């Protein structure tokens, strides 16, 4: 076989694996979030579609979405309207290129991995503004404007929070950062960075309590208001894909990625494969984010921007300074 064919084969295989992972995630997490939210509210959640526990609920949703009419309202900006769902979905999948699922389970270990993540996820904002503008609807424009303000405000602390682990590991490659956490997870030395990352990450995801751009009670639905059927479900897929991506990146940076907990003896560590550790930590973080969503009420737009610029940004800067100051101490202690 010629070399280019092998490369092509691998590329297609990896791409389909990642797409499969994203789709499976969406199916599973829709069901999981419904069940989780229901239990928090003392309900039972889906139970009749697929007994027990309504495990077929997401499949029913898929068929509902597929069978819906694809409405393109009159007077929309057609090109942008059609492109926006694709523009939002592609970066949501592209992030997974650098996510290390295991020691050898990574699509491409870029040496600027974390920079790549920050760059790719910024595309989401363009897609949201496209969708909001193209739909020719007041609510969606308001929503897109809010999303833009929010994403700009939270992108900065997010990236600054990432700098902590990067400083400690001395590399931008995600695989390198995971390997550097062999002895100690960075959440122990970077608790502030972890909290800032999680908060800013949730704001990036447009998830409650920062779901201002899809505030149903204020804006009907948000930037995806005019979309229906499959086009709408692309937004939905991207949202859940981003949710997993943020959790996966947080796991990689702060929770040791695919590494087993450092305090376990070596014999126990060998029992569970790394990819299981990685997925378990990721889904744990996903659940924590859901828990936060179903606990806290939505913030106002001025509170949101205040919080981003006046609190998270100084805190993340202080975190970098602290990391720099404590770095020699940590090295002396042999923690990193």
């Amino acid at each position, binding site marked *: 076989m010629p070399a280019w064919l092998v490369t092509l084969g691998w590329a297609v295989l990896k791409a389909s694996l990642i797409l499969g992972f994203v789709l499976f995630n969406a199916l599973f997490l829709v069901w999981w979030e419904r069940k989780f939210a229901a*239990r*928090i509210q*003392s*309900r*039972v959640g889906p139970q009749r579609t697929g007994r027990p526990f309504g495990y077929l609920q997401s499949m029913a949703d898929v068929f509902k979405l597929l069978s819906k009419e694809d409405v393109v309202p009159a007077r929309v900006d057609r090109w942008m309207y059609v492109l926006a769902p694709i523009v939002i979905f592609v970066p949501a999948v592209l992030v997974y290129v650098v996510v290390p699922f295991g020691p050898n389970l990574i699509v491409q270990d870029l040496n600027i991995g974390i920079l790549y993540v920050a760059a790719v996820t910024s595309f989401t904002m363009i897609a949201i503004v496209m969708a909001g503008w193209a739909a020719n609807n007041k609510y969606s424009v308001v929503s897109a404007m809010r999303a833009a303000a929010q994403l700009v405000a939270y992108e900065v602390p997010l990236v600054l929070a990432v700098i902590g682990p990067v400083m400690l590991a001395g590399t931008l490659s995600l695989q390198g950062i995971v390997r550097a956490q062999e002895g100690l997870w960075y959440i122990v030395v970077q608790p502030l960075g972890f909290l800032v990352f999680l908060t800013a990450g949730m704001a990036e995801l447009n998830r409650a309590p920062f779901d201002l751009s899809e505030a149903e009670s204020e804006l009907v639905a948000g930037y995806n208001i005019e979309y229906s059927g499959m086009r709408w479900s692309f937004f939905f897929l991207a949202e859940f894909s981003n949710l997993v991506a943020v959790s996966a990146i947080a796991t990689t940076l702060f929770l040791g990625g695919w590494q087993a907990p450092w305090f376990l003896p070596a014999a126990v560590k060998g029992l569970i494969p790394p990819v299981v550790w990685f997925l378990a930590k990721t889904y744990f973080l996903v659940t924590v984010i859901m828990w936060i969503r179903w*606990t*806290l009420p939505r913030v106002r737009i001025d509170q949101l921007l205040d919080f981003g610029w006046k609190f998270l940004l100084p805190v993340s800067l202080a975190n970098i300074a602290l990391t720099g100051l404590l770095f020699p101490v940590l090295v002396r202690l042999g923690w990193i």
Partner: protein
Amino acid sequence: MEAAVTRNRSFRDFLIYLYRAARAIVLGHAVTLKHLFRRPVTIRYPEEEYHATPWHRTYPALVIDEATRELKCTACMSCERACPPGIIAIERAQGEDKKTYPGEFWIDMLRCMECGICVEVCPFDALEMVPEYKMTAYHPDDGIFDKERLAVVVRGPKTPWPRRKGSYLEGGWPT
């Protein structure tokens, strides 16, 4: 003015504010976590039954006098006039002793709003709200209850509302 004052907080005020916010967030999550491990309150209706209390008021029904085994209603038409949506229809009939009784008595349960006004106006206590709640029907016509469907024996005086113990969630009422 007020807003300006809060904006120029001292650093100490800011720290207090921060502490309160953090405390509220942590407590909120503790509450939701507690609820997560509670038993859901949902009653899965066809499989599980809701045990309505005897004083549960669902829809108006015709009371049967336990002594004479006859309807208490005298077809005075007060309820028909009082019903806000006007969905009670009565056909007055007369027995040999000149006493009037309802020959036919219909209530359109599909439009009844269960306000209980008919019960209030009835001068003979011939109507009563009953705890029965299974009113589903396969045909709209079955939603119009006739005299037979409406006639029930209302048992004894109702006990007062119990305070806390023995709610329907904790095992249900005696039926």
